[in-house]
């Protein structure tokens, strides 16, 4: 699977953008955007060698990554781009992954389908984005 981006939780998205763009030299690909399905603010940036980072600022305690932010935030998930979206979900479910949120359209990624799964083996969250919606 090809990495599309790394999800990174921050408590203030403007400050996060400032840090990655002005200090680390990332290019801002998508401005601060509100995602109503997750109730979070998002922004997408790319490093000099084109690694993408999605900044995530939970809006309040009803946002899924709010408690993660309260514990310091930072690296939250890897997002993989796959062309066989449904098949990959099924395959991962058969390989010790839990589908904990059904697929939704991601406003930051041009409304392509995304889904979140949890790996039982390393206890980490991964996201899949549907390449066919590119």
């Amino acid at each position, binding site marked *: 699977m090809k990495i599309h981006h790394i999800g990174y939780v921050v408590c203030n998205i403007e400050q996060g953008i400032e840090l990655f763009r002005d200090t680390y030299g990332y290019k801002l690909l998508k401005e601060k955007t509100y995602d109503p399905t997750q109730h979070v603010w998002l922004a997408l940036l790319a490093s000099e060698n084109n690694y993408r980072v999605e900044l995530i600022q939970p809006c309040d305690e009803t946002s*899924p*990554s709010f408690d993660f932010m309260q514990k310091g935030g930072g690296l939250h998930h890897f997002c993989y781009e796959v062309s066989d979206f449904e098949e990959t979900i099924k395959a991962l479910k058969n390989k010790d992954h*839990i589908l*904990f*949120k059904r697929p939704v359209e991601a406003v930051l990624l041009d409304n392509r389908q995304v889904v979140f799964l949890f790996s*039982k083996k390393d206890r980490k969250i991964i996201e899949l984005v549907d390449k066919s919606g590119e």
Partner: protein
Amino acid sequence: MDKEIKELFASVIGIKIDDLNDESTPKNTNNWDSLNHLVLIAAFEDAFEIDIEPEEIAFMFKSFCNFKSVVEQKLVNG
């Protein structure tokens, strides 16, 4: 079954079994955060050989009463 569920739940998130009751929620229970909730789901799926759906996972994050009711229902329905 109630005791078995409580024991597994408490051991997974590292709390005392006496600290858990039907009124327990993520807000009033130590270590029951969104990530540990998924660790709990994984532990219950494996221990009881059940599959838990995304909607149920969200429902179970409201209270221990909800959590227990989903597990019990799955065990009754086989």
